[in-house]
């Protein structure tokens, strides 16, 4: 039982990382119908920037917030410079552009910082926290906490602010949004900015665990795809629940199904994608909204 709870908590911690990145994917998908393959590498690049800030002697949380701001601006810049010119191209062309972006970001990071793994600090104490017989990693609990705070902020933003409402409107019905005076192009750019910010959160939380290297988000991006697919690519809430679900499932299967262990864990994510696509392609929370015809 103790092992079970421990595995669930550490599954939730990695799940939170998947959730943040999945959320970033879903935000861009909802606004533009594009799956952004560069989401993970954008996150990786942000994390390297944070590392540089830390090397320069900034305190952790200052560097953390500064990285979020830089990632936000970077996301907007990428939308304006790289995505905007192909805005009206077929979806496949845009997807290829995001794959190109992935390759560029990984190479540039490798060129600047080299491909050698770097340790990345955690803001949480090294000492495990013991409750009864169960030992939790402080970083795990912190990761869950940060994820939940970010999600709460996002929810409040979309639910209660006019800007959040305008972003949802622009994603749903651009023509009507323009007629309401909404600058749709900027809303899309803002979406990229926010997505880049969540990615940066994911990157900085995961880096202490997997170490910093240009390819560190490759596997995580696949888990994020699984999370978004499980939850439904049209639902931010789904992406979050999907993230936690994938994290926990992966951990439990790895622990209790002996032939899978840690080596075949990623297969679990892929299997989840396939099962969801076969059984309920719109995902658990995918929208099948009511419309009168």
């Amino acid at each position, binding site marked *: 039982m103790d092992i079970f709870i421990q595995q669930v908590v550490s599954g939730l911690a990695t799940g939170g990382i998947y959730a943040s990145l999945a959320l970033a994917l879903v935000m861009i998908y909802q606004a533009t119908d594009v799956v952004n393959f560069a989401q993970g590498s954008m996150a990786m690049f942000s994390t390297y920037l944070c590392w540089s800030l830390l090397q320069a002697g900034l305190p952790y949380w200052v560097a953390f917030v500064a990285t979020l701001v830089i990632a936000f601006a970077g996301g907007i810049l990428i939308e304006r410079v790289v995505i905007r010119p192909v805005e009206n191209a077929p979806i496949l062309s845009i997807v290829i552009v995001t794959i190109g972006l992935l390759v560029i970001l990984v190479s540039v990071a490798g060129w600047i910082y080299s491909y050698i793994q770097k340790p990345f600090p955690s803001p949480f104490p090294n000492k495990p926290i013991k409750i009864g017989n169960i030992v939790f990693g402080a970083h795990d609990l912190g990761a869950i906490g940060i994820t939940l705070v970010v999600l709460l902020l996002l929810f409040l933003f979309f639910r209660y602010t*006019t800007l959040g*409402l305008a972003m949802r409107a622009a994603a*749903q019905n651009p023509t*009507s949004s*323009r007629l*309401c005076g909404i600058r749709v192009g900027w809303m899309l750019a803002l979406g990229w900015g926010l997505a880049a910010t969540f990615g940066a959160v994911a990157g900085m939380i995961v880096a202490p665990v997997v170490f910093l290297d240009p390819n560190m988000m490759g596997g995580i991006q696949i888990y994020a795809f699984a999370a978004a697919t499980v939850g439904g690519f049209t639902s931010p809430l789904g992406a979050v629940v999907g993230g936690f679900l994938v994290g926990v499932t992966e951990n439990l299967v790895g622990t209790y199904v002996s032939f899978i262990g840690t080596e075949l864990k990623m297969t679990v994510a892929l299997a989840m994608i396939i099962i969801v696509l076969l059984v309920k392609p719109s995902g658990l929370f995918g929208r099948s909204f*009511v419309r009168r015809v």
Partner: protein
Amino acid sequence: MPALLEAENLEAQYGWTKVLHGLGFAVESGGITAILGANGAGKTTTLRAVCGMVKTAGSVRFEGQRIDGMATEDIVRLGIAHTPEGRGTFMELTVEENLRLGAYVRKDRGAIARDFDRVYQYFPVLGQRQRQQAGTLSGGEQQMLAVARALMSRPRLLLLDEPSLGLAPLVTREIFRIVRAINKDEGVSVLLVEQNAAMALELADHAYLLETGRVVMSGSAAELRKDDSIRRSYLGY
């Protein structure tokens, strides 16, 4: 006094196909102007041209200021509200959120709150459905929502595209009654595009008749109602 909206030599095209061929028309301040015509005459395109939603040539002036070539969202900010063909409802948002988007360009929070009450007075049914997803409204209710959303921006000019489309005659009559009330009480000028010439001529003070992208006749609504060719072709008696 110059007209509120004035178009001269207005042309519009989709791709290589020209749809409007040098249109001229004016909307008097405080009036209701109708544009009549059969399917494909260019009525919807005329409204879209005013709002910068198609490629145009020629000039459009709003309160004396050239607005042709401006971006749609900037034209809207000048005080022109457009209730588009198909109503432009945000299907997945609630009625209340749709109305909030109507007031997006305004900053005066207190007045916006009062305007919610005002549009719920005009359209009580929307008041009852504030939290309902707009996609679940009936066609007539969605048309009401579209007009209400336009009102929320406090426009000086309301462009109405075919409000009768797909609605029962009674519902259409109700909507027309409210449009007249809005015009009288709020002083909102209206440019109305309609296939239903009989109802449009009842509502409007002034009308233009379009055929294949050209104005073929214009005058006061009373004059046009009496015109023999209009009576036969468009009023059907």
